[in-house]
């Protein structure tokens, strides 16, 4: 606006200057200067208007795609969030469950460790039960029970000192008794792989050695 006003002012002042400098200058124009000035102003305004409109159109053309892209990204993100919500919930739930589980298993281990281990007694009970049927014929001299022990992680197989071992030395009157006793020992589920080895003497009341693997409920620390 200021540019228009100043240019009009310039025009008018130029005309006035000419007139005052040379009053004899002839002018046959009856159309007021105001009219020309206004026409000129309108023309200038229109030009500037076109410039401004085109520039703003350019600006809009640049800004609208940017805004649209932002909008699209925002929409995509919100969509992602909406879709991943059940997943997150699930994960949270599973985490809670895991923690619960840990807590429970800890409790269980506490309970477990609080319970006395009766593997030794069970083994003894099994042997006693097996022996009871022919109590008169079998006389147990010695008994050695080694329950499975905890061993360090690097060993794949349990080492010699940690493997379960059952060694019974008994005097048996005849072989038949010895065999049935062995069968009864094997039948029980607390003892595996019961084998016998005859002692030095013959079967008129010889010594028999039974070796087996006792089964324990867990490793002994």
């Amino acid at each position: 606006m200021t540019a228009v006003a100043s240019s009009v002012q310039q025009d008018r002042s130029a005309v006035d200057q000419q007139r005052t400098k040379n009053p004899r200058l002839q002018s046959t124009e009856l159309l007021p200067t105001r009219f020309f000035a206004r026409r000129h102003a309108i023309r200038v305004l229109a030009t500037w208007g076109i410039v401004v409109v085109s520039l703003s159109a350019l600006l809009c053309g640049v800004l609208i795609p940017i805004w649209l892209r932002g909008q699209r990204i925002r929409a995509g993100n919100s969509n992602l969030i909406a879709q991943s919500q059940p997943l997150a919930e699930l994960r949270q739930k599973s985490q809670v469950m895991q923690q619960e589980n840990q807590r429970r298993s800890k409790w269980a281990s506490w309970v477990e460790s609080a319970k006395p281990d009766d593997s030794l007694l069970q083994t003894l009970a099994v042997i006693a039960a097996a022996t009871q049927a022919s109590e008169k014929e079998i006389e147990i001299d010695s008994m050695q029970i080694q329950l499975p022990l905890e061993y360090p992680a690097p060993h794949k197989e349990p080492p010699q000192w940690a493997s379960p071992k059952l060694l019974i030395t008994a005097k048996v009157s005849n072989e038949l008794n010895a065999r049935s006793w062995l069968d009864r020992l094997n039948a029980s589920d607390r003892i595996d792989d019961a084998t016998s080895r005859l002692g030095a003497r013959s079967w008129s009341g010889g010594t028999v050695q039974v070796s087996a693997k006792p089964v324990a409920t867990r490793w002994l620390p």
Partner: protein
Amino acid sequence: MTAAESKSPGSMILPWLRPSRSQPLSRYVGIDIGVDRANIVALGARHCDMRRSSQRTQSMRWLGRHHFSLPVDPLADPPKDWVDRVITSLLDRLPRSVDGDQNIAAVSLPIPWVHYQVVPASEIEVSRQQCHAMFASSLFRSQAHVAYWPLHTEPTRPDEPMVIAAIAESAAYELAEAVSELGYQIETILPHGVTLIDAAESMTGIDPRCCVVLNRSGGLIAMKNQRGCGLCRSLPAIPKQILAEADTLGLTLHAIRPWLTDIAAEITATQRFVLRGQATDANGPLLLCGDIAAVADLDAVLATLTDIPVAPWRYAGKARPSRRQIFDQETSQANRERLFNDSEYAVALSLAYSAVESMSRRNGK
């Protein structure tokens, strides 16, 4: 406005204004606003021929003419809303320009609106102030816009007489706005005398010593000097009772004879005033135009009364509208005379020529 269009005074001229593809003429429109009548003339000229003035005149064509009456009674006192009435009827009845066409227009105002005066060159500013005061107290209620030119040739002394033509600025401005609103590119508003003298030789082929406009509502005399228009003066209008009687019978030479004697005396006095102190004597005929000029034998009587040869203003260009009617066998002699009678359109034609001139001057710059 649409009603006026459907009545279609404008549609008569619009086919003439429309450009044909084979001849890309640009249109120059002269709008001569009188007291009770407006005359409009369209001249066509090619842009390419605008360079040399001889070619320019050659290539000019009179494309169309049109007139409509203005709602002002020349017999009554000037109405208070004269300017508004003129502008409204212009807006209603001026031929519309076809969209996309360039119509360059020159306008002249009614003769009573223009105030002529002769003052020394040093007193132009004083008389400008006087004109301001005068127009402010008149029905225009506006400032004056003053145009001036030397009475003789280039003034050498500071008190050399200058001719002043003053009009109301607001009236001219509003009128120009109205005309340009209708699609015309308004180029200039000229005093009648200036445009008549400038265009006389090119349009009529006659180099006059002066031009006289005689209208029912007032007249004007413009003297020619070496550089163009010299003295301009208003001439007295026909007395009202003569006009009132003539309304029924038409103007007769006998009825206007007393008034014509006065006019002749004014003309000789004006000429004497201009020639006073000048070495050279004026030569060339007096060009007569205006609507009273059509009265039969008026030119002869005026020549006798003034002792100056009188020539009626007649267009001497190549092409003119309604050619077919003129050369038609059935057209009567009187009709033919009427069709050839250009004196009513003299000012409008001169204005159109001035528009061509001013446009070519601007292009030449």
